[in-house]
């Protein structure tokens, strides 16, 4: 009796392990990375590869929460997850830590050709120390979303600089006289996006954050001017006082309910604003982020990658899946269904895509010229220093010049 029970348990266990051996577990980011759409593509892959099952795991709403979670899992050398979705700032850190399986062997002779098909920034971000460590999933960049109807009503033209933005916003806010309507907002909360909030006006003045070797080259005067620009907008009443609390999701909610005239946000916002239940549907425009006076428009590059875990037990199947997920048909699907920006230049010009996302026409040059955040094996620390201090400046607990000096000093230690 006892022996037979044991045999049954043993049999079931073996069965369970043999089933899980054919399944691939994917960490598919948070809601902003649209796991719902990824699931549909995984279903497609399952159809083409009978015997393989794809399980999905969703985590952390923001990039830094995901990084926290994944650092714990990967430090433990956990083999449970085979594929990770990574923010564009992470492949270098993960590759240097030995957490990503190099893909050159799995891609075969075509490896170099495949990488050339992507937008150059995504080809470059996924090659670390000469090895392909991840493949791009979708692109992203920051744009300004604005209420086209209000701009037209008051004859405000798309602003090219932040000064023009301020005067345009004033005109609209003065005319609307709505106490619940605020001007323009950006990611000011101490999240990953605040790194971009700090860098965008800095880059716009023609300065670089790091040199070619990765050494920090912060021009403190320019960085201070950039942060002062935001505080001026707040003082003029055209940026909400609580910008230091805003995350992309907060801005989406405010914009969608008509409480915000404009916002600096990522590509996925378009799709949410155009949803059937959106009160601002059909009333929005998209434009590049304004420049500092006398400078050039600059924006942060974003985007997400697929990497195979170095601890996975199904590396070959996992590599096959991410190769499938980084092809043109998938990019087209993600663009039309979720307004997730494509990683191929051709997809931006695809008539089917343009019909649904007319703003892609000018999105391509923006993505192509968008700049990358500093890549570092200690990116988590670099990002934390920049975003908490940028946030402190925006909520006025630190003076811009002092905050920038603090960033400079702390970065020196982080990159020791």
């Amino acid at each position, binding site marked *: 009796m006892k022996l037979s029970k044991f045999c049954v348990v043993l049999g079931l266990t073996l069965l369970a392990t043999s089933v899980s051996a054919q399944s691939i577990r994917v960490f598919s980011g948070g809601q902003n990375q649209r796991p719902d759409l990824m699931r549909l593509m995984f279903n497609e892959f399952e159809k083409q590869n009978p015997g393989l099952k794809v399980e999905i795991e969703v985590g952390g709403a923001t990039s830094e929460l995901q990084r926290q979670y994944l650092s714990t899992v990967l430090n433990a050398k956990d083999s449970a997850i085979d594929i990770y979705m990574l923010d564009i700032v992470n492949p270098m850190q993960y590759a240097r830590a030995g957490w990503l399986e190099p893909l050159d062997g799995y891609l075969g002779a075509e490896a170099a050709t495949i990488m050339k098909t992507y937008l150059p920034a995504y080809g470059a971000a996924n090659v670390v120390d000469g090895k392909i460590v991840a493949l791009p999933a979708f692109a992203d960049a920051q744009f300004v979303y604005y209420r086209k109807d209000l701009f037209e009503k008051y004859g405000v033209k798309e602003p090219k600089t932040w000064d023009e933005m301020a005067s345009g916003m004033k005109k609209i806010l003065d005319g609307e006289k709505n106490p619940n309507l605020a001007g323009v907002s950006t990611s000011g909360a101490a999240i990953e996006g605040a790194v971009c909030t700090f860098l965008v006006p800095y880059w716009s003045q023609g300065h670089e954050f790091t040199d070619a070797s990765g050494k920090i080259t912060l021009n403190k005067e320019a960085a201070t001017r950039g942060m002062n620009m935001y505080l001026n907008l707040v003082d003029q009443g055209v940026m909400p006082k*609580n910008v230091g*609390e805003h995350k992309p999701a907060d801005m989406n909610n405010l914009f969608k309910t008509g409480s915000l005239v404009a916002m600096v946000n990522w590509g996925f916002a378009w799709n949410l604003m155009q949803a059937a239940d959106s009160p601002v549907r059909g009333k929005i425009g998209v434009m590049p982020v304004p420049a500092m006076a006398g400078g050039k428009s600059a924006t942060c590059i974003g985007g997400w990658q697929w990497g195979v875990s170095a601890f996975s037990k199904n590396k070959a199947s996992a590599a096959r899946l991410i190769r499938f997920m980084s092809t043109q048909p998938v990019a087209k699907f993600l663009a039309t269904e979720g307004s997730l920006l494509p990683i191929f230049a051709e997809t931006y010009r695809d008539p089917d895509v343009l019909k649904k996302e007319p703003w892609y026409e000018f999105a391509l040059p923006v993505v192509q010229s968008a700049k990358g955040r500093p890549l570092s*094996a200690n990116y988590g620390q670099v990002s934390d220093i920049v975003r908490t201090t940028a946030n402190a400046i925006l*909520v006025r607990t630190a003076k811009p010049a002092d905050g920038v000096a603090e960033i400079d000093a702390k970065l020196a230690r982080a990159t020791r």
Partner: protein
Amino acid sequence: MLSRITNPSEKTLAFFLLAPAFLLIGCIVVYPIGRLIFNSFHDIRLSGGTGVKFVGLENYLILIKDREFWNAAWNTLLITLITVPGGLLAGLGLAMLANLPFKRKWPVRLALLLPWALPLAFAGLIFAWFFHSEFGFVNDLWLRAGGAQREMWLSKPNTAFAAICFAIIWKSSSFVALILLAGLQMIPSSLYEAARVDGASRWQQFTKITLPLLVPSIVVAMIFRTITALQTFDIPYTMTKGGPGNATETLAMLIHKNTIDYLDVGYGSTLAMGMFGLSIILTYVYLRRMSAEDHVNE
């Protein structure tokens, strides 16, 4: 040999019986602390294959000059100094209230237990919503009471700190109240009857009977609360994440940030040693005060 096992002497028997306990303590107390001390003298960064490098006192020298460490230590101390007495006062009030001769005791007891049973992170999130500048109910009250505009409670260092202390006091007062309630119920009612016969006022009864007899419970509650206050993590983490800037960052949060977020295990361990040192100093002061008071009582 076999006979020693089947028929052991008293000494051997004691060894075998105690061994499991020592093994357990070794695994869960001695090893982690030893490992912590070891780590604190090494450069261990899991972010890039630098391996484990002995660096002597380097981490400690960084720590002494680290403004973030002293800032977090000060915040932790301030939270302890505010929330331990604050929680004690609120808890005493709640305990006195619960000790009143209600007809139905269970709704009162339940109300006392609920905040205590709530996970800390939940409490933090709930209070974060209360103080939210756009959707929070504190701002709603504020505007109704004549406030000029919505305040950003959690984005200003002082109000954020006050909000966190408020949440911690709310959360911890029920725990204190439970301990004090047990103490209150140990006080025989005959003492109060005698006091009433002698014409003592309510206040006199409270200061001459209730408080002195409650001292042992108060001491227990204070020790428990001080230990947990020094380890404060969940409520500030969920309410402000240490912000604005580092204005509400506690030591436990700084250690977490360095070890888990930055993967700098070496320096994180040094920070933990720093926290350990501060706790020892505080415990010493505490014990000295208490033994001094014991002498006075004798």
